[in-house]
């Protein structure tokens, strides 16, 4: 019996071989590549033959002239995205919940989900076109109604907000799904009781619906704390230009330029490691909080 089970389990092990190999080759080997952060790395010498330089790369990073501005931009943009990304979907989900015709709800959902499935290349291409100062439709319309034209993608006072608003455009529809799902799980008899007690729709919303989805709001809010250093690389990379580095350059775009444009692999890896260590601490804290506050467990 035992040897039979062993041979049956052997089949299971064999099934796991391919994915295990892939994980070793493309996840675990790169993790050991973090040693680059402590080297003056030369690609042809590999991970273990490049010169070791201790913490030089980190010292270099902290002495980069823009690093603090970049850190500030990252946290500022990410926090605004987190806040807007929490509030807008909740409001939209609550409003959709008030609509009576299911066909209409579905059509609105179909319209607001779409941008989520388009890449930042496509959305960025669209945005660069419509937000352009000379020919963009938005500025044309604004001029039409007598407003001054705005360089959304080139003006440092506008750029971070452009990022936040366009990010909301891409993701808010998709985020409403979770709240809509939470809304349907509220016990309908609570509404019936509230109506008998004379609660109008506002009161129902504030005293039944909102408390009903508060656990989900807390959970998603806490989990999003892990994203405080993720200001959205693909979006910023598509939309920024040197004229808005001051307000729009973030850790990930800086890392890309240091690594791939300047070929300073050691420094770029140090920047990446710095970011992932802080991110790991934040994620760890947020999961701990999520567990304490909402009883949420990942595994």
């Amino acid at each position, binding site marked *: 019996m035992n040897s039979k089970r062993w041979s049956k389990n052997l089949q299971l092990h064999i099934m796991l071989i391919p994915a295990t190999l892939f994980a070793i080759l493309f996840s675990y080997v790169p993790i050991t590549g973090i040693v680059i952060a402590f080297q003056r790395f030369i*690609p042809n010498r590999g991970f273990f033959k490049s010169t070791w330089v201790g913490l030089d790369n980190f010292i270099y990073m902290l002495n980069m002239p823009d690093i603090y501005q970049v850190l500030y931009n990252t946290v500022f943009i990410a926090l605004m995205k987190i806040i807007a990304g929490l509030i807008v979907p909740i409001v939209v989900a609550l409003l959709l919940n008030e609509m009576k015709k299911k066909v209409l709800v579905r059509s609105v959902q179909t319209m607001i989900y779409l941008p989520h499935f388009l890449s930042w290349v496509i959305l960025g291409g669209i945005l660069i*076109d419509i937000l352009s100062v000379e020919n963009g439709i938005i500025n044309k319309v604004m001029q039409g109604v007598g407003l001054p034209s705005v360089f959304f993608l080139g003006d440092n006072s506008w750029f971070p907000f452009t990022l936040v608003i366009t990010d909301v455009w891409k993701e808010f529809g998709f985020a409403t799904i979770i709240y809509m799902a939470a809304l349907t799980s509220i016990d309908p008899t609570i509404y019936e009781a509230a109506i008998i007690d004379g609660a109008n729709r506002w009161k129902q919303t504030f005293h039944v619906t909102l408390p009903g989805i508060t656990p989900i709001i807390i959970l998603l809010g806490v989990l999003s704390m892990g994203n405080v250093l993720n200001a959205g690389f693909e979006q910023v990379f598509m939309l920024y230009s040197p004229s808005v580095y001051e307000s729009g350059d973030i850790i990930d775009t800086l890392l890309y330029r240091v690594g791939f444009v300047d070929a300073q692999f050691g420094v770029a890896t140090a920047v990446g490691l710095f970011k992932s260590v802080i991110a790991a601490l934040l994620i760890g804290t947020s999961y701990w909080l999520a567990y304490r506050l909402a009883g949420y467990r990942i595994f």
Partner: protein
Amino acid sequence: MGSKKSSQQLATIVISIAMLVLGIVCLLPVIHIIAFSLSSPAAANSGKVLLWPIEFSLDAYTYIMDEPKFGKSFLVSLERVGLGLSISCLLTLLTAYPLSKESARFRSRTFYVWFFVTTMLFSGGLIPTYMVVRAYGLLDTIWALVLPGAVQVFNITLMLNFFRGLPKELDESAFVDGAGHWTILFRISLPLSLPSLATIALFTMVGHWNAWFDGLIYMNRPEHYPLQTYLQTIVTNPDMSRITNFAELKNISTRTVKTAQIIVAMLPIIVVYPFLQRFFVKGIVLGSVKG
């Protein structure tokens, strides 16, 4: 009482209209770009095009159909989607099945689960991953776009949970009849889980179609770029005018050509969008707030 009811109805109508307007506003940029790409260059550049093409013209589309770089990158994208889809789905099946067994039966399960979850929690980061792909000699090959992300732990989790939901009696009776795990996976579990696999396949396809950053770093030669990477380079380079034949300039403009390319790159997503929408609600709720 009657007025209260009618004011409630009024509120419903106002909310419904506001939400419909919101939905339409979300689509306006896309509709504008479609209208723009279908207009003649003169009308397009005059700034009159809003949401409906003016002086309807397909010239921009016929131009990109003849553009060798566009066609080439379109093929790279198709190849990438095909390879990525088959490899990822196979890996997902082969990994999810053993991990769906109970730890009591399959002792090493816990080890494997942590082994894969770790890859989700920690990563080497951009530069080390790039260096590894480079060291394996995958730069400038399609494999650089397919292999590094082939194991998708999130999809494996979804599939694994689905396998667990299948009745255990199926496995047990098959074991009694002498079937091994391979037979059970491919003859019993797989046919029963085709809808779940289809969902995962659809999301993998969309992910591969939309990916562009890996193409930018792993491909040195523009002719190896997948479509989205190619698009990225032309969209973000205002000076890169690809129109060299001046006789053609009358019928097209860089801007209408750009927008036409954006629309063509978007088409596959629009085509699968109805299916995506049908599937994803379940998937995201399962993945993000599992109880």
